[in-house]
């Protein structure tokens, strides 16, 4: 961590970057931090408690501007950044990645290929929480699943924290805000909530990198991250991509194969 601070301070001091997006100590746990001077770099932290997906900030023009910037990125953030590259949302020359492996060694990554090579060393696994809830859902009948999700979705009040926390929800105008016609009811009600979350999941097919930021952000504790996670796990082998790695051949829903499954088509 000390090495990372020193490096960030040096980068800011010599003008290589004008901003380091990282973490600082928050009131309860680490939180995102925008470090703009080398003096502030002493506040940077980088450890296993840093869970926010900082990739959510790198597409915000108002924040990063046009100057080069650095991101101190945990693995989950790197996975999202790769996907953002695939979707042409980032410029390699503008962004520098600072990261540290579990042993504390500092890595500087400057391109899509360097990040890909680094991320390939880490397997995407279910955590304890994901395993527990998904195991429960996988054991349910269809009716039980409907009741489970209906109960969960009934709590949603459409604050859209899930959307705001997701690095891949970068649209400036979301489909829920399209109102001619109004596809999804903007008011919170169980079915309108269900439609919103199904819609979100559909828009994440082949794009979600299972960082869990949406579930973590939900103030009413709906495990929405598991919808996109499960879908990714189940569909990745079928669509020929590796969970957590970017789809270089193009996104799942904008590509197809002649031999895609069609047993369900009569």
């Amino acid at each position: 961590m000390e090495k990372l601070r020193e490096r960030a301070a040096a980068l800011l001091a010599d003008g290589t970057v004008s901003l380091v997006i990282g973490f600082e100590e928050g009131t309860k746990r680490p939180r995102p931090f925008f470090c703009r001077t080398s003096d502030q770099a002493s506040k940077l932290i980088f450890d296993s408690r840093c869970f926010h997906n900082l990739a959510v900030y790198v597409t915000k023009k108002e924040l990063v501007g046009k100057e080069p910037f650095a991101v101190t990125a945990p693995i989950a953030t790197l996975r999202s950044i790769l996907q953002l590259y695939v979707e042409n949302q980032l410029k390699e020359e503008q962004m520098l990645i600072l990261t540290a492996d579990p042993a504390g060694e500092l890595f500087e990554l400057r391109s899509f290929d360097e990040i890909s090579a680094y991320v390939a060393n880490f397997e995407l696994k279910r955590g304890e929480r994901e395993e527990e809830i998904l195991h429960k859902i996988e054991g349910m009948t269809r009716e039980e699943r409907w009741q489970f999700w209906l109960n969960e979705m009934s709590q949603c009040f459409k604050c859209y924290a899930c959307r705001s926390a997701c690095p891949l929800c970068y649209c400036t105008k979301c489909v829920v805000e399209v109102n001619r016609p109004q596809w999804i009811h903007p008011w919170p009600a169980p079915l309108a909530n269900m439609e919103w979350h199904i819609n979100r999941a559909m828009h994440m097919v082949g794009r979600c990198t299972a960082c869990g930021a949406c579930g973590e952000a939900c103030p009413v504790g709906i495990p929405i991250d598991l919808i996109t996670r499960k879908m990714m796990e189940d569909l990745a082998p079928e669509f020929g991509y590796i969970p957590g790695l970017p789809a270089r051949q193009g996104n799942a829903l904008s590509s197809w194969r002649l031999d895609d499954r069609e047993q369900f088509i009569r």
Partner: protein
Amino acid sequence: MMSDSNTFEPKIVAFVCNWCTYAGADLTGTSRLKYATNVKIVRFPCTGRIDFLFLLKSFAQGADAVIVSGCHPNDCHYTSGNFHARRRWIAFRAILDLMGIDVRRIQFSWVSAAEGAKWADLVNNTVSDIRALGPYTEYQKVAEYLEKEGFDGEA
């Protein structure tokens, strides 16, 4: 409502492509083939244009089942619209199934412009399947939530 399966007439919405299935359904008529009247056809330029929200909206507004049909693989008027659609339905079915929505109520099919008889069979079979399943009240009653009392979000 209509709990007796003998009197239950399923409401079915069919989303079909202009070039194959719509023409196929037209052929069913011109061939004087009789088939169930439970289906309301909505014509689209291509299966690739059929947004998944159309299906959800149909259920929310009282449909008991949905048919989605277009050109056979390699027959698409726009070359690959149906291939894109097929992928979308694979993903959509996976999500719906995870959420506990009854995917038996969505029937996908390829019906070409020459398959008038297949269209009649498709509709007839879907109607009898849905007749057996009963109305999709599980979904429809959630759609009417706002009418009810309570602010705690319980459905």
